[in-house]
């Protein structure tokens, strides 16, 4: 048992923090997130080519840094600290995680593209009727010769407007909520029949509704087995869930620090409002939520390798706790700032918006408590 980071992990954190400190100040972020494309592609390229950061969780034989989930958590936490909109989560954590899991020629072909910064991959899994149920799919992939034909509607696919590829869940058989019959595909984002409606998200990123209209895809787009993809999808979504817990930790830390700083400057009744004990205790409660979010992220990350049930219980415990904490820290950061907190002017409100979206991402507090109970208290 050891809860220290290796030198390499410390180096990844320090390198990334320095880079983001130089390139990702709040004003710059506001500028490129409100531009036409909503991003600065040079940052992604620099993350890949100058820092090698997109290789953090990949094996050295693919050109990566030889890390795994802990390295992903480190990167996500640092991105959280600057409310970064870089598509590291869908590209590296999720699609990269799926490719690592299936291995073989598909991994050999795509992982180097991810590491080089050439690929951006959107994760098209959610559907309008499906809520957080990964098997609740109406999107279908019908066998057609050597390939498949895709039809369906995917909701709120983050980073899709920038994507070179899409990672898509679809039914190759069974009924809309069956565990069997679910498959996972990695496809080119610009195939004929893919219709996108792009929009900004409330947390500063970009996403799309995606409609598949008789999209012909090749047979080798299938990742893993046909109709048996759900366990793999659950695994990569669990990896993504702890990764957003890590991001939340960074976001929450900044919400807390920003609040501390503000209360020491802001004067009312002739004193900095940080002198008031009611605010001091509130900020201590926020601090405790940040520390516990950090603890739960580590717990969830370290348990990703356990058998599915134990992994899911751990990830759900982590996400449930982090969701509550993000809610508490976010709302109290705004309350403590007062009126200025509800404007677009200060960074604090933008951190609050990201914290709020993380609360629901890959399952709300209630969803994860339900899943936790089904596994651990099912009698």
């Amino acid at each position, binding site marked *: *048992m*050891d809860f220290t980071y290796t030198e390499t992990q410390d180096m990844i954190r320090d390198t990334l923090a320095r880079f983001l400190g130089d390139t990702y100040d709040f004003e710059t972020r506001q500028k490129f997130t409100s531009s036409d494309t909503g991003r600065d592609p040079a940052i992604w390229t620099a993350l890949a080519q100058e820092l090698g950061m997109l290789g953090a969780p990949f094996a050295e034989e693919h050109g990566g840094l030889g890390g795994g989930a802990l390295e992903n958590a480190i990167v996500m936490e640092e991105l959280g600290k600057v409310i970064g909109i870089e598509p590291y989560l869908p590209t590296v954590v999720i699609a990269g995680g799926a490719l690592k899991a299936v291995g073989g020629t598909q991994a050999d072909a795509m992982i180097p593209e991810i590491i080089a910064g050439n690929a951006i991959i959107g994760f098209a899994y959610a559907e309008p009727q499906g809520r957080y149920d990964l098997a609740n799919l109406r999107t279908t992939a019908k066998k057609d010769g050597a390939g498949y034909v895709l039809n369906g509607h995917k909701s709120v696919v983050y980073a899709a407007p920038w994507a070179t590829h899409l990672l898509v869940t679809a039914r190759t058989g069974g009924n809309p909520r069956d565990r069997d019959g679910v498959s996972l595909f990695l496809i080119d984002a610009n195939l004929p029949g893919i219709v996108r409606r792009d929009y900004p998200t409330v947390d500063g990123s970009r996403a799309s509704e995606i409609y598949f209209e008789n999209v012909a895809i090749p047979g080798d787009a299938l990742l893993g087995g046909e109709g048996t993809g759900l366990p793999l999808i659950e695994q990569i979504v669990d990896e993504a869930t702890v990764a957003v817990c890590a991001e939340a930790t960074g976001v929450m830390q900044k919400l807390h620090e920003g609040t501390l700083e503000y209360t020491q400057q802001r004067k009312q009744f002739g004193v900095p409002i940080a002198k008031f004990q009611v605010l001091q*205790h509130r900020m201590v409660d926020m601090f405790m939520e940040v*520390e516990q979010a950090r603890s739960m992220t580590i717990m969830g990350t*370290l348990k990703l390798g356990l058998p599915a049930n134990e992994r899911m219980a*751990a990830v759900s415990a982590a996400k449930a706790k982090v969701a509550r904490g993000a809610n508490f820290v976010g709302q109290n950061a705004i309350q403590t700032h007062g009126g200025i907190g509800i404007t677009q002017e200060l960074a604090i409100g933008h951190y609050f918006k990201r914290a709020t979206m993380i609360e629901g991402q890959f399952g709300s507090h209630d969803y994860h408590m339900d899943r936790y109970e089904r596994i651990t208290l099912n009698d």
Partner: protein
Amino acid sequence: MDMEFSPEDLAFQQEVRQFIAENYPADLRDKQDEGEEMSKEDFLSWHKILYKKGWIAPAWPVEYGGTGWTPTQRFIWSEETARADCIRLMPFGLAMVGPVIYTFGTPEQKAHFLPRILSGEDWWCQGYSEPGSGSDLASLRTTAVADGDDYIVNGQKTWTTLAQHADWGFFLVRTDKEAKQQEGISFLLIDMKSPGITVRPIITLGGEHEVNEVWLEDVRVPQSQRVYEENKGWTCAKFLLAHERTGIAGVAASKRGIEKVKAIARTELDGDKPLLANAFFKRKVAELEVDLAALEFTELRSLAGPNANRGPGPESSLLKIKGSEIQQRLTELTLEAVGHYGAPYFRGFGEGDNEHPIGPDYAHRAAPTYFNMRKTTIYGGSNEIQRNIIAKMVLGL
């Protein structure tokens, strides 16, 4: 970073398990199972077994009688003793005054007191709080006035846990009335059999005689029993409180407590299903488990993380706050689970008593324990004081 147990750790776990199975006193186990109050001899019987084995003070430096265990081994130890429902060891010597003596004491004090703490020969109590000095501990008014080689001590202490059993007490006393509050306090070791000491019981909500008032009238204490310099006792006091706070998290015991609540809720019926199938009750259990996992990993980070060798710092206040809140929720949930049978007041079996107790065994101490555990957010520095400590020492406010 990993949470694996090495082969050595697993062997250690087996060794601990086997040792407890073979050596834990059966009569003590019976008394615990029936929910009876524990006597001084009950507490000491397990203490003495561990002392003989050399496992009584895992947290102490090896040179003073510690075990030299790694943080992982200490984690295993606390897990296994909680899992086996071993009675808790009294913290006053082992976790409180012992570390103060080996950190601040003279060679003579170390040589005399530490072995007696380890063996259980001396039972210690803590003379900190006074009727007028609770959260504002430094306002204490018990005085010690120099008289030759002695001090003459006068004053009143309160909330003195199990002082009725104590051979020795460690006391905070005022040795300089003119100095700033914290700077006029000294740390004295006092023989509880000294003339002028009176111990009077205070009965708490569960009906227990656990705490006491201690009166000191012209008690003569050799100056050689002062730990550290005169008027520097506050340094010892703060050091002790930080040590006390980490132990207070009680993670392993709370884990075991949740197992017990679940067992009760599987037995108790709610309609035609076990109580644990009730969605509202189940959610409270699940949230407690999740919050306990957050506490556990926060504690593990501090025990086996980058700052592991630094000793307890102000972040131990976080462990105290969250640990005590969880302990209280646990006892509240237990009381809720036992339903009607929370009400009968069980006073233990009398001599030759062959009546059946009322209600299931697991219900006997549910209410008294719930009442008793309200203390956890008050003692060791109330949770409000802990928040003040974090605000000042961690957040810099």
